[in-house]
């Protein structure tokens, strides 16, 4: 009995099953609340039917959870008959409930290689992109490149379905069949749509086909095993990659004019099929604006994190490796910068040089250089005492080569984690500055700009504020969850 209780705790499926039904139930309740118009006492047919579908799959999810629990308690593992029921739950993809679908894929396969998980999320990303893009069909017209882009996206999706099946069948923990090389190369090409999961899968396959270094494969497997076990981290990664991919695909499937050109005939429309999120006070489609806004948020988020990582990392590495004097000069100068509040510095820079995306990135970057330098310096000080650094020095390597070939690569993990966690902060800072009228120009679709307009219509057209608010929350949460997951994955104590 004791071992069976452990079986419950150890089982990936059971933990995820619980997480899934709870989230699913929350979503279902939100839909139920929204399907009633409390003022008029009417039932909104469309929302209610979506609610019904969600309720159905949530109930099925609860049944699955109970069955998994029973299996684990009685025989210590999940019966294959229970696993087969996962195929039924796969159909919840029509409702767009990514939680139940992800669980279903997890349940179906007993041996989950990282490649299988990549393939699953790669396919999910693709399906979501196609679904989001095809909402444009309800508009009066679509972008000129829409049809061609959709055909390519559908073609890629079919290829990815095939890849998923092949991966599930043929890829093992330690190796992959050599003929899958061609699939891997194709996958790398499909990553051009922004689907990073395809890139990860392709890289992973090539690693397993070409590499004979088992320890490298093992390390790769362990890291991803830990990340994919963590439901929130992998869903965070999924959302980030989805946004990234949407930012790229929207260039072909969405019409930018719908997001910036005023349409005085369609001012403040309620959400409908043609305008899934309604329109704002200038008659611009909020859905298109949110989609194009993702581009700026991600660009500024990544760029304003990458710049301080590089500059701060470089300065931190020098400060950590060299003697007191260098250390003191660099760090005390950075302390001066650190004493200036970041957001005030950003406001000052933008007020002085004008509001545009480049200045925004610079303004947000400068303020966070010192924190990265500190992180890097601490790591470098620790790593430079290791024996392999001594041996490199004994072999006569130059300081430069020791720092950047030996020490820095071994100090990167905390930097990556920190960077992931601060991208979220950068996204919020971008939106805050735009909200204050200091970010990008007001007509440019940026989430902070959209929220600014929405905030004045909070009472009469609340969706104008809620939707960009949710978008910001989701993206920042995703980065934070992913950061947490990465920290756990890189932390040796968690083994």
């Amino acid at each position, binding site marked *: 009995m004791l071992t069976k209780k452990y079986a419950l705790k150890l089982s990936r499926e059971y933990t995820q099953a619980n997480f899934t039904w709870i989230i699913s139930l929350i979503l279902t309740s939100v839909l139920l609340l929204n399907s009633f118009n409390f003022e008029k006492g009417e039932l909104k047919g469309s929302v209610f039917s979506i609610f019904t579908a969600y309720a159905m799959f949530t109930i099925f999810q609860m049944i699955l959870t109970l069955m998994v629990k029973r299996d684990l308690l009685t025989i210590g593992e999940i019966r294959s008959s229970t696993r087969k029921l996962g195929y039924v739950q796969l159909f919840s993809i029509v409702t767009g409930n990514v939680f139940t679908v992800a669980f279903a894929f997890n349940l179906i396969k007993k041996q989950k290689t990282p490649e299988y998980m990549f393939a699953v999320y790669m396919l999910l990303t693709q399906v979501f992109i196609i679904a989001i893009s095809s909402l444009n*069909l309800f508009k*009066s017209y679509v972008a000129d490149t829409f*049809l061609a882009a959709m055909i390519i996206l559908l073609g890629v999706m*079919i290829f990815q379905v095939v890849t998923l099946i092949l991966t599930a069948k043929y890829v093992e923990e330690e190796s992959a069949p050599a003929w899958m090389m061609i699939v891997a190369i194709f996958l790398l090409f499909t990553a051009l749509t922004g689907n990073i999961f395809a890139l990860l899968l392709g890289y992973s396959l090539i690693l397993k086909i070409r590499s004979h270094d088992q320890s490298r494969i093992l390390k790769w497997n362990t890291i991803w095993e830990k990340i994919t076990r963590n439901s929130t981290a992998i869903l965070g990664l999924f959302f980030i990659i989805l946004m990234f991919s949407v930012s790229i695909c929207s260039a072909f499937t969405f*019409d930018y004019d719908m997001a910036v050109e*005023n349409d005085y005939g369609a001012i403040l429309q309620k959400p409908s099929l043609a305008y899934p999120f309604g329109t704002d006070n200038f008659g611009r489609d909020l859905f298109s604006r949110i989609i194009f806004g993702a581009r700026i948020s991600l660009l500024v988020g990544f760029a304003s994190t990458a710049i301080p990582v590089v500059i701060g990392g470089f300065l931190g590495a020098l400060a950590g490796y060299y003697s007191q004097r260098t250390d003191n000069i660099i760090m005390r100068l950075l302390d001066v910068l650190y004493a200036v509040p970041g957001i005030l510095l950003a406001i000052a820079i933008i007020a002085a040089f004008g509001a545009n995306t480049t200045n925004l990135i610079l303004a947000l970057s400068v303020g966070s250089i010192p924190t990265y330098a500190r992180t890097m310096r601490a790591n470098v000080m620790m790593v430079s005492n290791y024996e392999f650094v001594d041996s490199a020095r004994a072999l006569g390597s130059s300081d430069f080569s020791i720092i950047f070939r030996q020490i820095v690569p071994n100090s990167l993990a905390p930097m990556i984690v920190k960077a992931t966690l601060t991208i979220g902060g950068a996204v919020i800072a971008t939106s805050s500055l735009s909200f204050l*009228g200091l970010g990008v120009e*007001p007509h440019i679709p940026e989430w902070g700009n959209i929220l600014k307009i929405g905030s004045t219509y909070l009472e*009469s057209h609340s969706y104008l504020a809620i939707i960009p608010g949710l978008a910001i929350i989701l993206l920042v949460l995703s980065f934070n969850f992913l950061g947490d997951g990465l920290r756990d994955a890189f932390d040796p104590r968690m083994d």
Partner: protein
Amino acid sequence: MKKSLLTILLAVMVVLAGCVSTKSDVSDKKNDNTEPKTDKSKVVIELLGMGSGEEDMNIVRDQLIKNGFDVKLNIQPDYGSFTAQKEAGNYDVALSSWTTVTGNPDYAVRALFKSDGDNSIMADDEIDALIEKASTETPNEFAETYKQLEQRLVFDKAYIAPLYNSFKAQGVNKDILDVDTVRLAKSRAIAWEPIDFIDETKRDTDPLIIQQAIGTLTSLDPIKGNDGSINTLNTNMYVRLVNLTDDDVVVSDGSLSYNHSIAEGNSAYYFLLRDDINFASITDGKAVDTGERVGADDVIFSMNRAKDPDSVPDHRTYSLHEHIQDVEVVTDLSELDGLQSGSNETIREGLEKGLDVKIAELVSDKAVANNASGKYQVVKMTTVNPFPQVLNYLAHQSAGIVSKKQVESINTYDVATFDVSKDIPYGDQNTVTEGAKYNNTLYASGPYILSHKNDYEAIFYKNPGYMAGTDYEPKISTVTVRFIQDPDSTLSALRNSEIHLFNGVPETKYDLVENDSKLFLQKNDSNAVSYLLFNTKNREVSTSETLRKAVLYSINQDEILNFYQGNKKKAVSTVSPLVDTGNELKADSAKVQEFLNDYKAGN
């Protein structure tokens, strides 16, 4: 299996491709008639504006882009930086607005478009001549002159591109205030004295709480400011010779004069003064009656300093009063026997209208005046040219009457060597701001007097010596003016009863006020006009009339009205709300293309 899937997919694709119309399909249909453009390169227009005009700027940007321009936005956070950019000439078009607070058309054009106007950046002899001609004309005659002026200003030369004329809207808390006592005038600032609570017992216990956006007061000396920070405050602190009604008619009601008359020839004006207004001052935190009457010597002093650019440093309003030639007290009763302009009545008959005690004697000393025994004071004003609209300027807050004695005792500095860091002029806001520099020396001739202020609010008390016992005696003892900058925050304050009155409800929020059971929305026309001002120096638009016209005809006022949900009116110039000229600006893309092609061809 795979083959059949592929076939189905292809079939679906073909069907879909047939149903879906792409952007170029749609735009091809729309633009079938347009000729191919000769030059594809876009003309860049730099649009300057303030953060508060972001919505208007977006509409203009959108309309210009749709007509083939490229637009660069220059958005400044506040009026100070906007003016700095404007003075530096960093714009092609600047989003500007103008409110004619005097309610007469001359004010709406003189300062803005005349070559030597205070705010003018242009020089056009024909326009100068038309403005001068209209100023001497009566309302029936000047409609045609202003029509010609608009034709020249807007359609022929395109010095400005008009956007819209706003309404005024005021939200009133009808659970607290008696809505019928709250005025909403087209031009003049709101009068506080008639406002009353529903529960009249609260008059002396509760303050009337209102709002103003700007908390930094330019000056409490009426001639030293003409902006939103002091217009309402000075209007209620200083009485004037005449007032404007809610629809811009000049009357003596609620002013320092019982009546006024215009002598034949339209260049001499007579005012019969009241004897029941005393100056108030603040002593020990309370408003007290100084016992000093507001009389003819104060009027003469106030008018002379108003028209003299050198009477104070930083004189902001002398151009409004440059028509005044002489102001004097009349002591010879026979001077009033002349005829009034356009009438068979004498000036005296005009001045005595509705008086219980007729004029028996005219006195020059204000202390001797006693209306009950027939001793009156009469002030005569003459203008440089015949100029009937001068009365509108006398109703402006800058013509407020100050105390000769008090102002002369405070303004002891020499104007030419005035030193900001040392000399403290009358009305300096620091003297009424809480803190070490507080030293309230104000003498108020109006219904209320400012006691003290901080960054959060300003407190006004009722003038105990202001028309006591008449209809114009202030009802509520204390008025608190809250400084709340943002209109949305102000609206929230109104809705949770933090303030009782909000003048300036945003157009897009009318429905919120109308749907709130404790609020009442008052609406009236206003003289506020928004327009685009073209740069007249060092820009392509300064030299090319065709380029300006291309911008002009890109402006679609119907779309602007649509955006504001019909809560704006069309306008052609700043005169539009005051004179019906019959002109209208119609957007015309074909004309825009024509002008643009002309411009690109080098014309």
